[in-house]
């Protein structure tokens, strides 16, 4: 069996931060019942189920939390949050873990989901909304350009059905959106 290193001090600090989000302290009351994992539509693809992430986080087994795909695969459907008998705000916890992973550089460098997340955020920052073609192009160019070829037939089909816009659209009031995002981010840094 794999012997896992437990970083109790760093773990403690990160745990405190997760618990500082609204209702975050409820992860202390997790019964490890697994309702979250069984409800999660992405859990089949996760290395560790959401329940195991909570267990690992509480135990300070940080590599499982940050180096696995789990937090990056959360689709924000909130089903786990709705069903959790302990009232844990799972989806919010997942976001907090993503943010912490990036901040502290705890993620695995070949973790493509992070790049996907980044490309997505930057596209949204630029246009105020998603621009599928540009985002996918950028994502594959930074990860695996060859894989892009495999997506062409899907892209063509989407184009034919009018489901894909080749050119990005900017939303109205992008400047206001940026101000709002800046204000929120400023707030979350405690400034």
């Amino acid at each position, binding site marked *: 069996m794999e012997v896992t290193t437990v970083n109790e001090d760093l773990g403690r600090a990160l745990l405190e931060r997760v618990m500082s989000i609204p209702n975050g302290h*409820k992860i202390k009351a997790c*019964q*490890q*019942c*697994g*309702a*979250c*994992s*069984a*409800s999660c539509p992405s*859990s*089949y693809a996760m290395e*560790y*189920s959401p*329940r*195991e992430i909570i267990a690992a986080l509480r135990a300070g087994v940080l590599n499982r939390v940050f180096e696995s795909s789990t937090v990056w695969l959360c689709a924000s459907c909130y089903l786990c949050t709705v*069903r*959790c*008998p*302990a*009232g844990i705000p799972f989806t919010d916890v997942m976001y907090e873990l993503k943010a912490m992973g990036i901040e502290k550089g705890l993620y695995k460098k070949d973790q493509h989901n992070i790049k996907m997340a980044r490309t997505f955020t930057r596209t949204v920052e630029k246009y105020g909304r998603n621009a599928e073609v540009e985002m996918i192009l950028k994502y594959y160019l930074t990860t695996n350009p060859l894989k892009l070829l495999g997506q062409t037939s899907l892209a063509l089909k989407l184009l034919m059905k009018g489901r894909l816009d080749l050119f990005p659209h900017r939303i109205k009031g992008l400047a206001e959106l940026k101000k709002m995002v800046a204000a929120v981010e400023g707030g979350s840094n405690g400034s």
Partner: protein
Amino acid sequence: MSEKIGVYLCHCGTNISQTVDIAEVARFAETLPNVAVVREYKYMCSNPGQEMIKKDIRELGLDRVVVSSCSPLLHEETFRAACDDAGLNRFLFQMSNVREQCSWVHSDRKKATEKAKKLVAAAVMRVAKHEPLEVRKVPVRNETLIIGGGIAGIEAALKIAESGKKVYLVERDSTIGGHMAKFDKTFPTLDCAACILTPKMVQVADHPNVELYTYSEVEEVSGYVGNFKVKVRKRPRYVDVVKCTACGECVEVCPIEFKNEFDENMSTRKAIFRAFPQAVPNAFLIDKKGKAPCRAECPAGVHAQGYIALIAQRRYADAFDLIMSDLPLPSVCGRVCYHPCEERCERGSLDEPVAINTLKRFASDWAAENGVEPAPRKRTKEGKVAVVGGGPAGLACANELSKRGYAVTVFEANEKPGGMLRYAIPEYRLPASVLDRDIERLEKLGIEIRTSSPVDDPEALLREGYGGVFLALGAQKSSSMGIEGEDKEGVMGMLEFLRAAKEKKLTCIGWKVAVVGGGNSAMDAARTAVRLGAESVQVLYRRSRAEMPAHDWEVEEAEREGVLFKFLVSPVAVLGDGKAEKVKCVRMRLGEPDESGRRRPEPIEGSEFTLDADLIVMAIGQQTDIAGGMEKLKRSKWGTIEADPVTLETNLKGVFAGGDAVTGAATVVEAFAAGKRAAESLDRYLSGKDLREGRDKEIPVAPSPSTEGVKKEPRVREPVIPSIDRVGGFREITGTIAEEDAVREALRCLRCGGCSECMECVKKCEPEAIIHDQLEETVEIEVGTIIVATGYRLFDSSRIPQYGYGRFPDVYNGLEFERLCHAGGPTGGKILTSKGEKPEAIAILHCVGSRDENYLDYCSRVCCMYSLKFAHLAKEKTGAKVYNFYIDIRAFGKGYEEFYKRLLNEDIYFIRGKASEVTAVPEYPEEEGKLVVVCEDTLLGINRRVPVDMVILSAGMEPAEGADELTRMLSLSCTYGGFFMEKHPKLAPVDTPTDGIFLAGACQGPKDIPDAVSQGAAAAAGALSLMDKGVFVLEPVTADRVEELCSGCKVCIANCPYSAIEFDAEKNVSVVVKELCKGCGTCVASCPSGAAFQENFADDQIVNEIEGILLAAKGA
């Protein structure tokens, strides 16, 4: 005067001393004013500790004592008793809490010590101002009220009854036994629930010291410990519990079925039922929701829902029998009644009202066709009654009295009986043959009818030997308008016209006929004239169509048959040379509404015109025509007979009157009602009973029944002959519906009243135990103690949508599965799916609702064990694969862990993980047609989908319905989830903060049978110890009033959480009921005039206490 105060500092082992430097506190205390001695000790509450205090009181002459130790909740009584023992008033003592409020909650020794000093100083300063107080005692009555007859209540009742004290056991349900009576087996021993419960139920019922109030609820509780006054509302069972032998014959004849609540609605029961065969009391009861609205609306109170229910069951003879017991002339009524019942029929709010009258006609005609006679009547009464008048009122009275066993003679002045039915209602509505048939039947039943026998003097009948007389003389005279020329030939009163037509003494061939009036009889006259061959028929009415008193359908039919209407027209004269030729009319307009609410018509001047008319029928009303020897009867100014509206007594003793002769012309069914009312009076009169007592009982009308799931269906239509075929003669217009239509129509009834009151059970019940007119009763009892044992209700699993309860028929809750396992349950103990198949795989989901922030925060304590029991029973009975989905297995009781281990050896699958959902959407071939339980097997770290045929949701426990009301009634408090709060969770688990009230069983928190029984016994012990002692010592630390200062503003009354303040209206002051006051001080704080004060919380005591704290703070 200077006091001598002793200060005693407790270490509480190391509980206090490890955080508080007691030696330093002692040194400080010695410096405080009036302190004579300071001592410290390891355990001040121990005997040596107490002795130390007592010795100092005696030897040093202490007159005040302060103990600094734990919470007064624990040891205040200990030290007060010690003071008592040493001869010091127990209220010259003060306790300061340096454990719970100091050492336990602080870690900094220095600061904790400073705080302890302040607390001690406060107590020392305060106690100096204490006054000696006297305790008061109240007597405690020797009876106990137990609310709730589940296993906890039963246990408590038996314990108390055995000790020789009286118990009132009040149970809301029709039987005692509670939830346990529904269970199949009990964990962990698997003994049969009924086998261990029913002997106790019987014991309770048979115990001479137990008075059982089932089907009853506590409505009001007043008073205080030892002297509670309780009002218990006894809902009517409609079956005499003593007479009922529980033979069950009534059930077989009852036509009404409802879902069986005892089987968790998985089977049906009749309207007359008992919860289960071993019910206690073992007597049936009738489920009535109230008076059916059809019956409530019927002037004659006919049991419409009853005959409808019987027709639905194709029991036409029984239906007919029921109608006959309500009405003398069923076929007549089925044709001519204006059926107000249908207006009120609840089915009308869904689609169309049930065709009630049509069904009555069907049953009556069916009986006539099939030669079915009503049940023969026996003469059981001595008296003999004379009925004067053979119309509907007279015949109804005769029928009712003959039913009750009296001999009745009807005196009819005409050649044939029937009154207006015979002479005024046209043949096309009511054929004479139908009337004859109905009347002949009455004669066959033993009612003597003497025709051509006018009666002049009712008192002569009394002298002849009749015990009583009912005058049903009718209104025999048509009203006249009093206009010019009204006496001409060719002007007829409506009654004379209709009678002549009926006797075939008149034709109108080629005539122009004018009918004056807008009522139903005007329609009868007009439509009759059409049939008699009139060239034209015009109805002249002085108001407009909207104001016409005639029923809409009558007007429509008349129009269809060619009758013309002239509205806002009134005749002023009949013109003609000897014979009527023309009628002169004036046009009218509508003015202000008159006393009848209709707008008063006023003539328009100069609008006169004339109409040709060969015959003018005055259909503007009827009058009483009382002639001859009736002059002794008191009359009203309208000429009607004066009779008491309730009893129908006239001014002549033994002579009653009713019907049209009293009320003026009214409908047939109202005449029936009057006849029945007279019969009731005569029955009472002849048997020497009070004529008024208990009459016209107000029975509430049943609430609207649920129409959920009821399909819309059109109402049956009576066959009707086409208008073209009608006018040539007097053929009856409507026909009787066919049998299949009748049954279908009867099945449309929504059974508003619950029990249909078809009276079949009454016929069947040999011991005559059925009391259909039983009323609710309120009894008042006085008790010394109260035990609350109201139990729980199961968590409603449909609140968790992802588990599919209520959506998938094969998802059951715990109680439903209990019934499925039970030999007396809906499947006779076979565990079958909703399709009636044996399940191959069963899933049991633990923690449904429990331990879940979204529903019940707490663990319901019993579900793990009952889930294990279910797993065992399911395995044993079906051999199916059984899966338990659990988070933790809580098997904490005696023998429970062993039971769990036994199950582990029984090939049961235990999957550690909470099911996330139950779905019927298959993802794999083996899931087709199955329910799939989705979960994470947390021990394996994999998600699983388990296909099963049946899912059992082990739902948690919630407080019973109505617990809220009881909380208010008894001034109880609630803890988590709404369970009643005990006085102390560990040391007083069955006491409540209200003295004299105890808790037992699941009302205090979820618990299993052994725990509930233990609490029942414990609560009994609590109640017994109070009652045995016979007195209760009241804490004198209560509020009081300085009467002169009280302004009577009542602010304190509104604020008192214990309802302990009353208002003395004479003195205009509020008065504290010391027995109820808990000394919380709320009233003192809220009193704006400073009139309220509280013993031991005087201003100077509190000020001194504060000064003590400040003193210590300064010292530090």
